């Protein structure tokens, strides 16, 4: 008889190696899945994990890694702080869209000015847009105790409707021959989120994500607010007795994650995506949830997890191109990664004991 015995505190060793085991399991099961689909499994796995870094066209794909990892890390950092406190913002996709819309709208109002203040203004409005969208579930939770999971998720669908509406209405390019979609920010220097170092994919959003990582690390490990957040998540009653304001934790966590998701949206729309269009959002808000867990809710872990997830995006594109692997297979692949991580996590919190009752 195999029993589970709770560890007094989570094992540091297992915390570190479970993501690796999860990746290996995903490769195994994913490879089997590719074989069932009639694709060569080893080649497919290699296309996803090897080719983007060491393959023939790696000089191009390596840059793409940072482009994809930037928004994922930025959003996941915000989410991870909430998850630590037991506040489940799963509507980051909506905050990401609203940040992009608000930031882009603020910029487009100034068109065609070339002032240096335009891009900073757009960044500010992007963050505020995401913040405002996240404040809805936050204030409702504080005021009425409404479930933030459901509210933040419903707001994703609302944001998508707004996106569809503004990209063919309010923000449509007046010189775009009636096609939906805003002006292209890549052709407007004052509002373009340029590549800072050519060929690396390093743009302002990636820089912002690294700043966010350091900020989150300092806050969580060195600042009283970070301690309060961790305490509220680990022992809510102890936190309440110690005078931690639950309302403040909610507002802080949701506000922070909303602002970061909004920033990610703004950097995406002014950089890699280029314009507000009905499908500029690529589901980063949802994938970032996987990134946050895979990175063990730890800021530096999230950087590694974000890069890994970016690898599956870029590698997935390569596999789609070279092996005609369906795009959905990659989505499933990413979902499996989270599943295996949660499954192997049992080793972190429990010990397996063989034998009778204790």
């Amino acid at each position, binding site marked *: 008889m195999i*029993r*589970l*015995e*709770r560890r007094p505190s989570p094992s540091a060793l297992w915390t570190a190696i479970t993501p690796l085991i999860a990746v290996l399991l995903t490769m195994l099961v994913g490879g089997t899945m590719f074989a069932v689909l009639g694709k060569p499994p080893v080649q497919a796995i290699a296309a996803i994990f090897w080719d983007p870094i060491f393959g023939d066209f790696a000089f191009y794909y390596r840059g793409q890694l940072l482009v994809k990892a930037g928004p994922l890390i930025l959003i996941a950092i915000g989410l991870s702080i909430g998850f630590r406190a037991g506040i*489940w913002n*799963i509507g980051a996709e909506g905050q990401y869209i609203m940040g992009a819309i608000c930031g882009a709208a603020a910029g487009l109002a100034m068109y065609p000015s070339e002032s240096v203040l335009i891009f900073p203004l757009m960044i500010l409005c992007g963050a505020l847009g995401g913040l405002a969208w996240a404040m809805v579930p936050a204030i*409702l939770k504080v005021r*009425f*105790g*409404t*479930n933030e*999971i*459901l*509210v933040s*998720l*419903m*707001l*994703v*669908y*609302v944001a998508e*409707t*707004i996106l*569809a*509406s503004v990209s063919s209405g309010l923000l449509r390019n007046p010189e775009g021959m009636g096609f939906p979609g805003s002006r292209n920010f890549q052709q407007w220097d004052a509002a373009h989120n340029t590549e800072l170092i050519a060929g690396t994919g390093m743009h302002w959003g990636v820089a912002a994500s690294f700043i966010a990582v350091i900020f989150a690390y300092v806050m969580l490990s060195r600042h009283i607010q970070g301690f309060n957040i961790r305490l509220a998540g680990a022992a809510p009653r102890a936190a309440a007795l110690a005078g931690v304001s639950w309302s403040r934790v909610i507002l802080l966590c949701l506000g922070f994650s909303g602002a970061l998701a909004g920033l990610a949206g703004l950097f995406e729309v002014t950089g890699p995506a280029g314009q507000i269009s009905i499908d500029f959002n690529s589901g980063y808000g*949802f994938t970032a*949830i*996987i990134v946050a*867990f895979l990175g063990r809710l730890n800021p530096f872990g999230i950087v590694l997890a974000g890069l890994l997830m970016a690898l599956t995006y870029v590698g997935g594109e390569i596999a789609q191109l070279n092996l005609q692997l*369906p*795009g*959905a*297979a*990659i*989505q*499933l*692949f*990413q*979902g*499996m990664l*989270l*599943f295996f991580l*949660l*499954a192997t*996590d*049992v080793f972190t*919190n*429990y010990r397996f004991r063989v034998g009778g009752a*204790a």
Partner: protein
Amino acid sequence: MDLSSINPVLLIASIMLSATPILLAAIGEMVVEKSGVLNLGVEGMMITGAVVGFAIAVNTGSPGLGFVAAAMASAVLSLSFGILTQVLLANQVATGLGLTLVGLGLSALIGTPYVGLKSPSVPKVEIPLLSDIPVLGPMLFSHDLMVYFSLFLVAAVWAVLKFTRIGLILRAVGESHDAAHALGYKVVRVRMAAIFFGGACAGLGGAYLGLARVLQWTEGMTAGAGWIALAIVVFASWRPWRVLIGAYLFGGVSVLQLNLQAADVAVPVALLSMSPYLITILVLIIISARGAHGAPASLGRIFHASG
């Protein structure tokens, strides 16, 4: 603006049609939550049911087989959630989200060859005599079998929870798993069975969406229906008949807004299409503000026998 173009008989009939998938998923999830498990993967199970039901119905030409296959597929998928949360003691919120992501990816993968195909139609069952009543007949008594089945399921769940021993055990497990365990009930087994049932219901709901409402497969076609089902369980304060009311209310809103769009009402289309989601939020606020929740006491908590 031409409101007279809205036919009340057709309106009620289509409300029943549009409420059925959410009703099926919500009543299943209610049973899961009654056993103390919060499965946030309803959306993923629904969309898996939708694609499997559609694929089987197209291949065999039989919608009935499609529904059976959809229920089985989603139930099996839900077992992965069961194993993770009940055996490997994973966090239910995270695992449920994972289930949704897996379901969305899996369904897109299975569904690729079926995009653009049309499903065989689900036959309508005209209830003898009753369906001949003017107005009421076409409104209430000439639907397909699944509409009646969903209503039967609500009644069945209500009766089982209220009057049977199985229902009592299920509720005991959901209210206090430690007490139920001390009495010798198999907490994990009861919960696994509830999760399995919830998965099957979500699968049926998803299949209904593909086979009876939309009549084709498109990626991500559930569009939040699974999440709305979760909201309806909260709205219903975990009571079967209120789940029915919630689902029909929601069906009413979504049909009405489509009718209003068609009737050229002077309200922006975007506002109308987001109204189902906004109203769900509004309802959640009202329910939360009122305070009386009625959630099972062990909802979402991890059960570990040796403490």
